[in-house]
Each structure stands twice: as C-alpha cells, then as structure tokens.
C-alpha cells in the first residue's frame, strides 16, 4: 500500500518517530510517499494571522498530492493534522475563500483543483497491524495520551473528550492500556516556551494522573506532545514515565529492536518498557 505522507517540521528530529514509522511501515508493506517539497502547514500560528495565507500554506500540499495521484494525505502530527483538516473544512464550505486561495496559489505556479481527505498516521498503522502480535507486553501498563488535536475539533476518528481508539490499539498489539482521566487534557505544548510555569502545571497534572493509575510508560501520537511530556519530567514534575510513540510500541510488538526504533533518544529512558524481569 502506498500513502501520501506529510511529515511536518517536527517529525525528523523527534525522539525516534521517524525511525519507528519507517521501520514499522517497511515491515507492514506500507510505502511512505513523501509530499514533494512540502512546507510548514502554519500550525496554530497562521490562522490567527491571515486566513488566506493559512489556507494557501496548507492547500499547496493539496495540489501537489493530487499531482502525485493521491486523494488522501496522511500525517503523524496532531497539529499538522488539525491544521490541514481545518483548511479542508473551510475550503469545502466557503466558495469565496476557495477562489481567493486558488488565486494566490496560481501566482506561485500551483493549480488547486480539489481538496483531499486528511488522515492521521495512527489510522493507517492501527488498521494494518496484525492482531496477533509477535511479542507480548501484557505486563507493561501503558497510558494512552491523545493530546488535543486528533479528536478535537473534528471528531472524525473518535469522540472529542473520551476517545478509546488508542487503548483498543494498545490491547490489540499486546500491551495493557491503563484507565486514566488525562488522555485528552491539554499539555500546553504550543505555549510551553512562553508560559513555561503554567504549562508545567498542566503536564504535571497529566503525568501524575497516569503514574497514579499504574502506568509504566506513556504512548503518544504527536511529536509536540511527546516532547513536552518528556522534557518537563527533567524539570522536576516528580514522575518517571518514558514517553513513547505508538509506532515504537507497534515496532516492539513486531519484534523490531528498541535501538532501531530510536528508543534511545528519550530524555526519560525507556529500558523498563522492554526489559523483562
């Protein structure tokens, strides 16, 4: 299976997201076709600056994906997902904004004809994973962390506040999912540099809830969530939870080595996830 992949700016330098995505996709027979010469989607900044600019930054990819023969774009970052998804929504429902965006793109040599479907990498991998995992990690309780922008505002995949798809996935690939109440609480990643103290309180609440409910590690589906939960633990929030990507746990379950999955790149080390007693 070939997918049109939009990595986004944080993908390559994240703690093993790229390595694990590539290794797992290779094993599952998924070919990642990167969008040619992709640009930043504008994340949470551009829509607050200039609507036409934000729509143009996103929809440049819509035109390129179409020229590559795809009608779907897949991304592994929640912020990219929500931004591209928002652009699709606006362009489909506002003919005037569509025309103005099309006009801007024409002037940089891009023809916008149609809008694609936006999907999260999680959807693709969770469908493709075999339910009988090679390795079993039943004794490793994992706290699923969805972050904000996978199920909010567009509830395409699951309910906005109480999704369960990630827990279902964890159980399917041989881990145990813990039950906790912080799975869609905001960690403040988009403001973490500016409002450091306030955002540390947000992550602390999330991490303490997870550890208190028996989790041994966390799994995330977004590079911004991963980084924020990981780095705040080096600043004394009082928890010791390795923050993994769902692709890394999928990789472990498929028998791929932790090193190959980039699991040596965390700030909170993760040996306890795969070390057997």
């Amino acid at each position, binding site marked *: 299976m070939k997918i049109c992949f939009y990595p986004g700016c944080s993908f390559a330098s994240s703690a093993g997201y790229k390595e694990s995505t590539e290794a797992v996709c290779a094993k599952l027979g998924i070919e990642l076709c990167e969008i040619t010469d992709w640009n930043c989607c504008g994340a949470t900044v551009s*829509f*607050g600056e200039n609507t036409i600019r934000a729509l143009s930054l996103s929809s440049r990819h819509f035109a390129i994906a179409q020229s590559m023969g795809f009608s779907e774009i897949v991304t592994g970052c929640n912020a990219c997902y929500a931004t591209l998804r928002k652009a699709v929504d606006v362009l489909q429902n506002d003919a005037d904004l569509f025309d103005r965006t099309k006009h*801007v793109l024409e002037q940089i040599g891009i023809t916008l004809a149609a809008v694609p479907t936006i999907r999260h990498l999680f959807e693709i991998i969770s469908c493709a994973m075999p339910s009988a995992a090679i390795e079993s990690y039943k004794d490793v309780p994992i706290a699923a962390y969805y972050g904000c922008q996978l199920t909010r505002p567009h509830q395409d995949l699951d309910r906005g*506040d109480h999704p369960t798809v990630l827990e279902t996935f964890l159980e399917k690939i041989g881990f145990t999912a813990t039950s906790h109440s912080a799975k869609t609480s905001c960690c403040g990643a*988009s403001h973490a540099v500016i409002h450091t103290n306030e955002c540390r309180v947000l992550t602390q609440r999330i991490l303490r809830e997870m550890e208190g409910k028996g989790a041994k590690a966390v799994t995330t589906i977004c590079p911004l969530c991963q980084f924020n939960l990981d780095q705040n633990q*080096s600043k004394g929030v009082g928890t010791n939870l390795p923050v993994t990507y769902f692709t890394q746990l999928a990789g472990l379950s498929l028998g791929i080595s932790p090193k190959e999955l980039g699991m040596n790149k965390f700030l909170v080390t993760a040996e306890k996830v795969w070390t057997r007693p």
Partner: protein
Amino acid sequence: MNITGKNNPYSDIGKLSHINRCIQCGTCSGSCPLSDKMDHAPRELFALIREGSYEEVLASITPWFCVSCYACMVRCPKEIPVTDLMYAFKEKAREQGTVPKNLNMTDMYDAFSKTVKQFGRVTESFLMGRYGMRHPISAVKNAPLAVKMALRHRLELKPQKIENPDTITRLYELTEKGGE
C-alpha cells in the same frame, strides 16, 4: 442586541453571529487550560461583545492565550466555534493594528512566521534562537535542555528548508494586506 451592527469592528467575521446563541454557561471558560491567565475568559469576552464594549474586547489579551486545544469548542452546548473565533479575533487585531503590546506570545508568533517565510519550514532550534535574540533570559533558561537534546542527537543545527524557499516568501507577500 445586535452584534453584527455597523459599530462593531468584528462585524465582518463570518462566524460572529454564533455568539448570539451563547447562554453564558461558562463551559468554555471552565474547559480552558489557560483561562486564569486571560483578562476575560471566553464567556466574559462574549458577554462584552454582546453588550458592545468593543474597545475593551479589542484590547483584551484573551485570544493570545488560546492554546488551540479546542476543548471549549467540542463542549459548547450551543456549538459556538470558540477557538475559530479566537483565531478570527487575532487576525482582526493584526488588521486593525490593535495587537496588545508586551506579550511574549506575539514575539513567538512573529519569530515563527518569519522562519516559515524565509525557509518554508520551521526548525525548532532555529526558532528558539530567533525568539531568544529578543528574550535572552528565555534563551539562557532553555540552554540546558538544548544540551540534553544535542546529547541525544535531536538538536538540528542547520535550518530545514524547502527546495525553493522563494515560493513561500512570495506566498507571504501575496497574502499581505491588499496583496491578493
């Protein structure tokens, strides 16, 4: 009460009329992770708009503290697109030149946009450097983290860029006010 009237500086925002549905229940403010940093949490901001206190609204720092978590938006019992309105208020403040002064967040947004305009992509270390030039204390505080990242081969020292960054620079210029 007419929030789409002539004197309302927001009247051209398409989704503004949704505020008419607001029942002032406060679910938005209660769901907001940073509401205690705001001068008027969302419920109060909507009340101010409806009573026509536009000057107070335009000077409000509230939209600049929105983290885009969309919790308010999915929970609002009247389906008001709260987060989208926060984006629209920020855009409006830029258009009218009423962006609040001395907010570090606006410097961060500017650093982000300049980076995208120049390179087409964002490199975190580079973005932090650009922001740090105007906020040296923040740069010093974040230095130990940068070292830890470097030790784990996660610090990018060269900015990522697209093949032809002029394309994105042009896209920015075309979308400056009146450039379309």
